[in-house]
């Protein structure tokens, strides 16, 4: 659980900066930030499971 919380904290920080820096309007920033946040979490979980099944 702690690993997931740390990953979530990382995703929040990165998503905030990416969202604010990359887009111009507040609405676009919010959507892009949410998109980046979800992508970080989903890709992190998928990679975690893929690596779990690797024998090396």
């Amino acid at each position, binding site marked *: 659980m702690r690993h997931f919380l*740390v990953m979530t904290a*990382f995703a929040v*920080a*990165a998503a905030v*900066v*990416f969202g*604010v*820096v990359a887009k111009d309007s507040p609405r676009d920033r919010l959507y892009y930030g949410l998109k980046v946040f979800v992508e970080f979490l989903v890709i992190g979980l998928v990679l975690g499971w893929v690596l779990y099944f690797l024998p090396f």
Partner: protein
Amino acid sequence: MANVDNERADDVAPAKAWLMGVAGWVFPGLGHLLQGKVGRALLLGGAVWGCFIAGLWMGGHLFFISGGDQSSSVLLQVPPMIANLGAGLLYIAAWVLGIGFADDPVHAARATYEYGNTFLLIAGLLNYLCMLDAFDISAGRKS
């Protein structure tokens, strides 16, 4: 021809833009704050500060090139040090206070050691983005 010269003149960033960029690097969030972008300063500065403090709290290690190490492995310290340096004053303050630079095995054995390293690296890299954003806003390339 005159139009081309005007465009070139517009491309040159004013000294203020460089100042904002440096301010953003030295103190995360300050580059935006000085331009009146309080909300953006709080969000960006908060993210960088949060990452850095969380990294130290988790026992992360800050990288630097030590003069005593003459082997080629010292080159491996350069990229993470550049990333860490992005945190500006936070990195310098940690260096002055001797926080996060210890190289002891007990520290490295903590379960959150690698997480801490990552957070410290990301804090610096995110601040480079914030710094460039402050520069672009001041240069009139962004709103």
